[in-house]
Each structure stands twice: as structure tokens, then as C-alpha cells.
């Protein structure tokens, strides 16, 4: 379970998140929607442990443990995963080398044994084929020269291998064609489980046709301004965000 309580965050003195509250229960898929600049990506990065931001008030609790003082890698070992809006290219690091380093680093932290190379390969191949990722891609440098769709599938592959207890998908649908969207959505749906929560950040309802959420939250001006069921996404698709875009009246 992820609990964000009264979270206020600023960067260079500019407030981005403003007393934000959000709870996502185990097994729940929560969609986070909202106009550009409402702070959705900031929220995902702050949860994952990015240090560029100043947390002014509040706390972030994952499965009963406070995350704010922990390094990003410790948060990952505690079960948190962030699929990036723009997965980062890492020249010179072979994808397989990276996957193995990452998986074994987390296993070590969790007190599990490191995987042998054959066991690791077996696992990667099984997941890769489901996501239509070929062997050639795994041998290339991580995300370098990958298309937008390939990068997103690579992030989902990592999520499947790392088996987090909570995953944030930051605009995973952006830049995807309809076929790639379906592959990614199937990858996400395959990982839905009673013990695993998801926060799915998106601008559009389209992704939510494939990954059907349990709850939908609308974010504007750094806080959640409306919450509801999956029908809220349909309503937003029709009405747009104009009702939420106005600056709050200054008293």
C-alpha cells in the first residue's frame, strides 16, 4: 500500500506539490490524470527518490515504511518501481549486463541469492518473448537507438523481472502506437496481483481502456482535486480538464 500524506514539494522555491494526499491499496490500480504541469511527473519522481526537489511537508509511506529518508536504490529494494516517461539511454552498458546487475542488486538487498547466468537468461527470455522483445535488443546498449515503443517495453520488462510490490507508470502510453500500447497494457495486466498496487499516470483515457483502473484521481495545481471510479476517466475524455485548470481563487 502506498500512502502519500500532506505532501508539499518545491523546486528552486517554486511550489509544485501542495498538501497532496493519495492512497493506493494493495491490488489496486489507481489512475492519475490531469493537465500538463499539474505535478504528476514530479510526484512520481519524488516517490522514487529524485533529489532535485525539496520536500517541505508530509510523508510517503510504502507498506508501512516511510520512504523519504531512503536512497532511490533502497526504495527499489523495498519494492518500488518507476517506469519512466522517457527511459534513459545508457551508452556502453549492454542491456543484459544491466538487467543482471539490477536484478541481483535487488535480490542481494532482499536477502535472496543471486541468480546464476542460466537461471537469469531463462527468466529474461520468458518475459522478453511476451513483450515481443527480441534477443538482438537485449544485446544492444540499454535503450540506445531504441524506438519510443521499444524503450517503454524495455521498462515493462524490467518491471516484470524485478517484481515490485508497487509500480508507478509515468505516461507509459505517450509516444506509443496502438499495437505497442496493447503489448504494454498486456504486460501490465499480467502483473496485476492482489499484493501489488499500481499508480498509472496518463493524459488520456485510451490506456485505461486496456488497463482498467479501480480508481481515478484528477490532479491540478499540485493536489488531488477529484477522485472517483473508472467512469471519471470517460467523463474527462469528454469534458477535458477546463474545469480544473483555473487557478484557485486567492482569498
Amino acid at each position, binding site marked *: 500500500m502506498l500512502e502519500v500524506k500532506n505532501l508539499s514539494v518545491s523546486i528552486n522555491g517554486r511550489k509544485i506539490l501542495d498538501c497532496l494526499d493519495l492512497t493506493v491499496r494493495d491490488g489496486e490500480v489507481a489512475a492519475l490524470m490531469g493537465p500538463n504541469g499539474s505535478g504528476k511527473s514530479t510526484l512520481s519522481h519524488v516517490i*522514487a527518490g*529524485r533529489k532535485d526537489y525539496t520536500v517541505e511537508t508530509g510523508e510517503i509511506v510504502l507498506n508501512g515504511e516511510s520512504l523519504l529518508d531512503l536512497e*532511490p*536504490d533502497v526504495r527499489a529494494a523495498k519494492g518500488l518501481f518507476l517506469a519512466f516517461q522517457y527511459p*534513459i539511454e545508457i551508452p556502453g552498458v549492454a542491456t543484459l549486463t*544491466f538487467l543482471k*546487475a*539490477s536484478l541481483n*542488486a535487488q535480490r542481494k538487498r532482499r536477502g535472496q541469492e543471486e541468480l546464476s547466468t542460466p537461471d537469469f537468461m531463462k527468466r529474461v527470455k520468458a518475459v522478453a518473448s511476451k513483450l515481443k522483445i527480441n534477443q538482438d535488443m537485449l544485446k544492444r546498449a540499454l535503450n540506445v537507438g531504441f524506438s519510443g515503443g521499444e524503450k517503454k517495453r524495455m521498462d515493462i520488462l524490467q518491471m516484470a523481472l524485478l517484481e515490485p510490490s508497487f509500480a508507478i507508470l509515468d505516461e507509459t502510453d505517450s509516444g506509443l502506437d496502438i499495437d505497442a500500447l496493447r503489448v504494454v497494457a498486456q504486460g501490465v495486466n499480467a502483473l496485476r496481483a492482489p499484493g501489488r498496487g499500481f499508480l498509472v499516470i496518463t493524459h488520456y483515457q485510451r490506456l485505461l481502456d486496456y488497463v482498467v483502473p479501480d480508481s481515478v484521481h484528477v490532479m491540478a495545481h499540485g493536489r488531488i482535486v477529484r477522485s472517483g471510479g473508472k467512469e471519471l476517466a470517460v467523463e474527462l475524455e469528454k469534458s477535458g480538464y477546463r474545469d480544473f485548470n483555473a487557478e484557485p481563487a486567492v482569498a
Partner: protein
Amino acid sequence: MSADIIQARTPAESLLASTFDESKARLPGNACVAKWREDAFKVFTASGLPHRRIETWHYTDLRSLMREALPVAAAPGAAILSSLRKEFAADGAGAARLVLVDGFFVPELSSGLPEGIQVRSLASVLTDGRSDLLALLASQDLGQDLGARDTIVALNAALMQDGVVIEVAPGTVIAEPLHLIHVAASPVPAAHFSRSALILGAGASIRLSESCHAVYRPGTVPASHANACLILSLGDGARLTHTAMVTGTVADSVRIETLVARLGAGVKFDSFALVSGIGLVRRQLFVRFEGSGAEARLSGVSLLGGREHADTTLFVDHAAPACVSRETYKYILDEEATGVFQGKIHVAPSAQKTDGKMLSRAVLLSDRAAMNNKPELEIFADDVVCGHGATCGGLDADQLFYLQTRGLTLPEAEALLLEAFAGELIDGLGHDGLINTFRCEVKAWLSSRPKALMPPAPAGAIA
């Protein structure tokens, strides 16, 4: 009014002068060589050790960095040779190997020379006086090329004790590397001056792999001042892949390497160097395209920490048309290390269709590390493609964050990125054994880095 500034000799310069006076009668060579040495030493004394007011040595002020000179090493004794014999017998007897101990060629430690390769000691060549070999050996001292009259090359000519002269017959093709091993064996701090040459006949193709080897355990190696010169003459259509592992000396050591390469038509010449775990290193490369259609790829990685100082200075002279040169040098600088990259590309009026690209990239891991870049292009032809670039910076924060969110600790993420940064050039060497050797050296350096960048342990963490 004008004033001549006459600099007082430093203690190092005085000792070098007395060393030359005392030893010149004993240094190998016929009368011509003795004259060459005298002339070279005059060049050296005229300006002394290079200092910051000498343009090409601006960032490596040897006058202040090398306060003292060390006595010249004696030829290795029997005890050292016998222990080295055991060591070399233990590792890979099959490899083709030439061994220089404190600058002296030791044929009995060398082995496995393939057919088509002939080797002589420099001392014997200087004494026999074969005119073509002497002309090649002295070309950098007497010629008019870029960087001629470099005082360090002159000092090397004056005091050169020994080295190897390797001749490869035309058309000889050997895939496995010929190893040239520089052993530091003197039990006391010592200086050595060596000069070697490799003459590759037309169409010949070999790999030359240079490395350093210390007799003493790390931490107990005596300081050394090495001044080594390697002269390459590559005949038309020849191919040479040269690698150099410059490692394993101590903090107050000085190593100056000069590489002179003359490339015939259609030559392919690659030269890669890894510099790590050194005191002060200056590598200066003088590469001259003398025939058309040749290609040279010069590259290197320097891994520096502590107060180490590594300088790579290139003089690439395009004197013939349609040649390609690529220069790519990378530096990783930690603590108070200093990196220097100077690259001068000269394109002669006749060298049309020249294609030259030079790049230096530095990653600075500490606020106190410094990098000096000085690219220079001098182009006198009008139909050429030439460019240069230089970057300095820290590791990419987005890449580090991405790797951390996947579970790697900050030091692990840094090591992965640094290994990738350094490894890119190594992977291009095209020989699995060499790739593995260089990769291991990079890994060893990364794992020995002080862990100053480790985030502080969270309060209450159990050690």
C-alpha cells in the same frame, strides 16, 4: 631596453648535466652517435627541462614538477634476472615477448619470436652504425617535423642506454600480439632512458602490445624516472595495431613516452593507451602521414586519482593527401588529479582530401580534479574535413537516477557508467585477449577508488 632571461639550473638539470658528462664515454655508439649525443645534449641544455613558458609543455611544467633527477639505472644484476626468469617462465611461455629491464634489452627473457621478425638491441645498432637504422632512430632529433627539437626527445638521445630495434620483413602477417614489456627492477630510485624502433616492411601486419611490469610488490616499488622513445616506420600498405598499458608506478615517478610514427601510403595504424595508477605521465605522439590514403586511429583512456598527472600531447602531421586521422581520448579524474590533452593537427597545402576528427572527453569526479584541453588545427589545404571537440563534466544525473531506481547503489551506478565510458574505446581493439586485459585493469581501478562518493549510511543502520 631588452634583457635576456637566463634561468638558473635546477638541481635536476645540474644532475642531468653531470650525469651526461660522466657517462657519455660509456654510453653505447660509434663516433657519429657520440656526436649526435653531444648535439642533442646541447639542445637540452639550451632550454633545460621543459616548463610552462614552452607552449607544448605549458600544462606539464616539468621544471617545477620534477625537482630532482635520479641516478641512471645500471644494467640489471644476475639476481634480478634470475627471479624475472622464473616469473616469465610461469606466465604464458608461448607468447612472443621482448623484455626491457630498466631500459636494457634482455634477450634471455625474451621468447617466441615468429618468423619474419628480427630483433637487435639498440646498443648494438648504435655501435654497428648501420646508416639506415641510425637515420631512422635520429629522425625526430634531426628532422624538421612538428615537435622536432623537443628537449625531452633530445635528452633521450643524449642518454639513451638501450632498447630494441625490431625489423619485420615485408608481407609478414602475425595475428597474435608481440609483447614489449618494460620492467622496473632497480631496487633503488633510478632513471632510465630507452629508445626503440619498429620497422614494418611493406604489407606487413602485426600487433605490438606494450606493458609495464614491476618486480616489487605494490607499495614497495621505488620511484623511477623513465624517458622512453619508440620510433615506428610503417611501409606502404602495412598495418600496425599498437596498444600500451601504462600502469603501476608510484606517486613520485615520472614517465615520459615519445612515440614517433611515419606512415607510408595506405597504412592502417591504430594506437591505444591505458594510463592508470601512475605518478606523472606524459605521452607525446608525433604521427606523420608521408604517403596517401593512410589511416591512423589514436585513442586512449586515462584513469587518475590522488595527485596523479597525465598528459597526452599529439602532433598529427598530414603531409600527404587523402589520409584519415581519428583521435579520441578519454579521462576519468578523481580527487586532485590533473588531466592534459593537447592535440595539434597540421594539414599541409598538398594534403587535400584530409579527413581528421579529434575528440577529448573528461569525466571529473571531484571538485578538485582539473582537466586542460587544447585542440589546435592548422589547415593549409582547402579541400579537407577536419573537426575537434572537447567535453568536461560530471556523470549524468538522469542516468545515475535511472540506475538507482533499478536497485543499483550510487557507487555501483557510477562504476557501471564509468566502466562503460572507458570500455567503449577498449571494445574496439579487436582482440579478445587484449580487450579482456584492459577491461580488467579498468575494473580493478574502479573497485580501488576511494568510496568518498558513497552516500552516508542512514542513521541507525547496522554495519
